[in-house]
């Protein structure tokens, strides 16, 4: 028993590169003030990918509709700011709560069936929300998007900061939410709960037969992942002052999956690394050929899968024969 507990504790230990990553994230705010808008996008995408990692990397659920939660958080935050009160913190809590409720409701849908069933159901939920946001135009602005969202100042113990055009406040805010969410997720995956998730990912039948309640765990992790995705969506709406149908798009679900795969699944930080690489590549290729960026994205995906995606994050295996 003691050895097991020690092994688990060693697994949960803080590594040096985790601190380094944290330092780099904080330094990026100080050292790259001109790039805040891009960095803000990266951080939001990273948070979204981290939330997907919880269900894909840890629980092994292939979802094609994770944008549903991103989108609902986005619309919730935007509508709350527009109709109720413009305070970002309260809006963030609302976005997270709404996404978590939706996640809890949807989690019953992913408990049964095969990978294909889950794929279809998650895709279906995102499509339904897309249709809803499109048709309820008196509330959401329909295809034009929800405009006229004005955020209040960001209140902190050090005073209130207005969201500026350069995105300095926005990036600091996003970074803060990202770090908090990653810490929460880190605590979660290193807890006994997180370990049991990996057990049921690797062999659901065996996990069930040693007495883990598989369904309850899936419901919880799906809800948490939805909440974090909602936070990412809320950040997007709050820092850009805009929510559009695009947040529910299939494209977004596929993109976040790619981001996570680039960074590597199942160790929580894959989303962050993936988002950095993805956005920088996107910027680079878009500058060169803006309209056809998707082609290169597709080509990259095909090659990545054919070569084996686990090799991407392990360069030392590139020249070894398998």
């Amino acid at each position: 028993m003691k050895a097991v507990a020690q092994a688990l504790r060693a697994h949960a230990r803080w590594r040096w590169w985790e601190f380094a990553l944290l330092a780099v994230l904080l330094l990026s705010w100080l050292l790259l003030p001109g790039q805040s808008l891009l960095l803000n996008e990266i951080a939001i995408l990273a948070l979204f990918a981290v939330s997907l990692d919880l269900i894909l990397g840890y629980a092994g659920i292939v979802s094609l509709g994770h944008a549903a939660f991103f989108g609902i958080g986005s619309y919730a935050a935007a509508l709350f700011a527009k109709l109720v009160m413009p305070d970002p913190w309260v809006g963030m809590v609302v976005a997270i709560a709404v996404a978590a409720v939706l996640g809890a409701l949807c989690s019953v849908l992913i408990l049964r069936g095969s990978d294909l069933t889950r794929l279809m159901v998650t895709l279906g939920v995102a499509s339904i929300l897309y249709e809803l946001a499109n048709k309820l135009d008196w509330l959401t602005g329909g295809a034009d998007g929800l405009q006229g969202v004005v955020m209040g100042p960001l209140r902190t113990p050090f005073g209130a900061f207005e969201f500026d055009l350069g995105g300095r406040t926005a990036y600091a805010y996003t970074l803060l939410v990202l770090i908090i969410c990653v810490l929460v997720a880190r605590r979660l995956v290193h807890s006994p709960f997180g370990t049991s998730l990996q057990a049921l990912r690797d062999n659901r039948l065996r996990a069930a037969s040693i007495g883990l309640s598989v369904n309850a765990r899936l419901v919880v992790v799906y809800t948490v992942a939805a909440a974090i995705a909602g936070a990412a969506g809320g950040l997007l709406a709050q820092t850009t002052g805009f929510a559009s149908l695009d947040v529910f798009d299939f494209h977004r679900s596929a993109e976040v999956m790619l981001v996570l795969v680039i960074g590597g699944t199942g160790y929580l930080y894959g989303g962050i690394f993936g988002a950095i690489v993805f956005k920088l590549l996107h910027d680079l290729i878009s500058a060169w050929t803006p309209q056809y960026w998707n082609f290169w994205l597709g080509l990259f995906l095909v090659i990545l899968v054919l070569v084996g995606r686990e090799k991407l994050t392990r360069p030392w295996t590139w020249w070894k024969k398998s």
Partner: protein
Amino acid sequence: MLTLLFDGIAYGMLLFVLAVGLAVTLGLMNFINLAHGAFAMAGGYITVLLMNRLGVPFLATLPLAFLGTALIGALLEPLLYRRLYGKPHLDQVLFSIGIVFMAVTGVDFIIGSTQQNITLPAWLQGRFDISWIGIGKYRLFIIVVCAALAIGLQWMLANTRFGSQLRASVDDPRVAGGLGLNVNRIFLLTFAVGSGLAGLGGALGAEILGLDPSFPLKFMIYFLIVVSVGGTTTLTGPLLAALLLGIADVAGKYYVPKLGAFIVYTLMIVILLLRPQGLFARAGGGK
């Protein structure tokens, strides 16, 4: 009312021809191919380009759409798809999304992003009005062609040597291989035929569904609904699912246009919630 039902059936038959290849890929190789719509789009573009640029008559383009797409399928299967049969579903999903993205932007680059139109020959335009039911000639044509295809496929599957080999491979590829069947060749042929049918469906549907580079993404979910609701073990499952989907979609859009595709998605989720293996899955036939 009956006109609506008729249109729904035509739409459903079209969806069946489009999706049946996907059902085979999924049932046979357990491969989640999100790129199936790309083959349908290829068929549609073959027809459109042949008609508009070279002036080939509509009917003559249909077999060409089938053959052209089947050829693409036959090329891609051994080159790319075969490597992924045993891989996790996540890899297959990523791979086929990649193919979709490439197909969408590739067509956009080569042909342009505008909606393509075809002019049907005169004898397919217009409609018969028999008392209170209006039958569009082209829709009748689609139903006849697709029904013939469905019957032909069912016959082939049930009565020919290749059909029984195919059924054996679906049931258990390992045992089928062990009995001396060349499973790879069966996979290749089936994939090519499935792609070809998708191409034919795309060509037939260019008039009804519309054709532009985003076609594979727009209809991906419809194909997947047909397959996941219908199950992959029989032909009748996807056929009934396609008809159900076609009728529900046409009727839904007519009676409650505000809700759009909402009804279809909800119906799908409810069905999958109650019957996760599909409506018409064989008892005990799960994987």
